[in-house]
């Protein structure tokens, strides 16, 4: 596939690894957070950590929409789907297995009779509403800025077509407030348990919002940001650019993903989003807590298509499973293997926490691609012979 395969080339990756090893100062440590789950997935899947010198460390960030979605929001969707048989609840596949209250998930609610359906696109949910005029189609919308414009477009289209049986539960969240929350956290501040030298900035989020929104906190917190594509060579090149910034004492926003990201992003998409959606005063994030002005809601002009208003849905916060470390993992202060549940009761097949659900969650990525690295290697130096076996 063009623009994919060439950014996964092993020979070029080896060259980048040599360059990073050459340029990283042996006298110091480097700790960089990749904000996005897409980067986490690429780093785990392609073994990027293994190509880095020991003093360059990657910390997983909270940029996985499924991971930061609080239980209470999933509960809201489940309650609606179970209580009203006329409702068809549509959502992206990633959401279906997120553990909610009472041992339920949207998928388990479906097994109990709720009409829950997976869609590839927000447009599929809208098309379903047009086909099923006697039903109420509710789209449970999640995602960062990447996934928001399609939601805004279908809301606008539903309004234009007067599709009264379509509505949206809007859970869209924003990247910059989440990065700020991490930099303002006690772990990064007075506790000092989270040492961060810079960020790998989002790939596809930045195609929409551009590189400009990161400039304020690169300057304010003196942390370099390098926006990178989601392929392994992109990630490694960004790490090299971050090492260079640290070495020269710079804290700038640089763009490795120039093939898709410009400073001002996509103004057409931004205009559509701001026409239909507005800032929420606050929103609860799993792991990061309640963050002011960190998420979007549907504007009053589109209230007939806002499922929260239409069905009188209320949000009830729910604490995470006590032993689950998703919160600390999302804040970058713990690693998946630090969690007692990891790989024991919590696996991608039976996730207890949200980070184990989506393939881009830190726990799922580590489980799928890295969990055997935590185990000591056992050398089977002597082949076992029959004589030994019978002895």
């Amino acid at each position: 596939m063009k623009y994919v395969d060439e950014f996964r080339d092993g020979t070029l990756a080896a060259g980048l690894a040599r360059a990073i090893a050459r340029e990283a100062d042996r006298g110091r440590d480097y700790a960089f957070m990749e904000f996005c789950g897409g980067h986490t997935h690429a780093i785990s899947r392609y073994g990027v950590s293994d190509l880095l010198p020991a003093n360059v460390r990657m910390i997983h960030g909270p940029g996985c929409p499924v991971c930061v979605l609080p239980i209470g929001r999933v509960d809201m969707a489940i309650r609606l789907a179970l209580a009203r048989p006329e409702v068809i609840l549509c959502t992206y596949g990633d959401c279906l297995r997120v553990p909610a209250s009472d041992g339920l998930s949207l998928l388990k609610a479906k097994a109990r009779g709720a009409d829950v359906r997976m869609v590839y696109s927000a447009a599929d949910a809208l098309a379903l509403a047009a086909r099923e005029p006697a039903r109420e189609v509710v789209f449970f919308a999640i995602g960062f800025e990447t996934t928001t414009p399609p939601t805004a477009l279908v809301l606008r289209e539903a309004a234009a077509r007067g599709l009264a049986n379509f509505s949206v539960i809007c859970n869209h969240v924003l990247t910059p407030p989440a990065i700020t929350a991490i930099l303002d956290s006690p772990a990064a501040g007075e506790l000092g348990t989270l040492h961060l030298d810079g960020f790998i900035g989002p790939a596809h989020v930045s195609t929409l919002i551009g590189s400009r929104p990161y400039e304020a906190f690169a300057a304010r917190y003196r942390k370099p940001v390098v926006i990178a594509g989601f392929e392994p060579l992109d990630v490694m090149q960004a790490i090299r650019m971050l090492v260079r910034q640290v070495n020269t004492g710079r804290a700038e926003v640089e763009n490795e993903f120039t093939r898709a990201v410009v400073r001002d992003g996509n103004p057409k998409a931004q205009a559509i989003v701001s026409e239909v959606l507005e800032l929420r005063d606050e929103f609860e994030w799993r792991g990061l807590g309640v963050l002011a002005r960190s998420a979007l809601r549907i504007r009053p002009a589109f209230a007939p298509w806002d499922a929260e208003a239409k069905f009188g849905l209320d949000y009830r916060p729910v604490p995470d499973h006590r032993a689950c470390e998703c919160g600390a993992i999302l804040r970058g202060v713990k690693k998946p293997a630090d969690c007692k549940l990891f790989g024991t009761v919590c696996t991608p097949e039976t996730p207890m926490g949200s980070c184990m659900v989506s393939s881009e969650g830190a726990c799922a990525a580590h489980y799928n691609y890295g969990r055997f690295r935590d185990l000591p290697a056992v050398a089977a130096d002597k082949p076992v012979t029959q004589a030994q076996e019978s002895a």
Partner: protein
Amino acid sequence: MCLAIPARIVELLDGDQCRVELGGVRKEISLALVDGAAVGDYVIVHVGYALTKLDAEEAAQTLALIAEAGIAPEAGR
């Protein structure tokens, strides 16, 4: 979740729609979020929508920069 892939536009259709091809698979997607996309352009596709056009020249430059990294400074001179 933010998974998006570059695909080539093979046909423009009515109502901001187009058909893209990716590794032999063809799919109808929306161009409502981008301006001025033409047949032959690569767009980054996410949940059925093109997010942006892909700049072929920038892609080539990035790859060239990455390839340079593999050349040790002494050997490169």
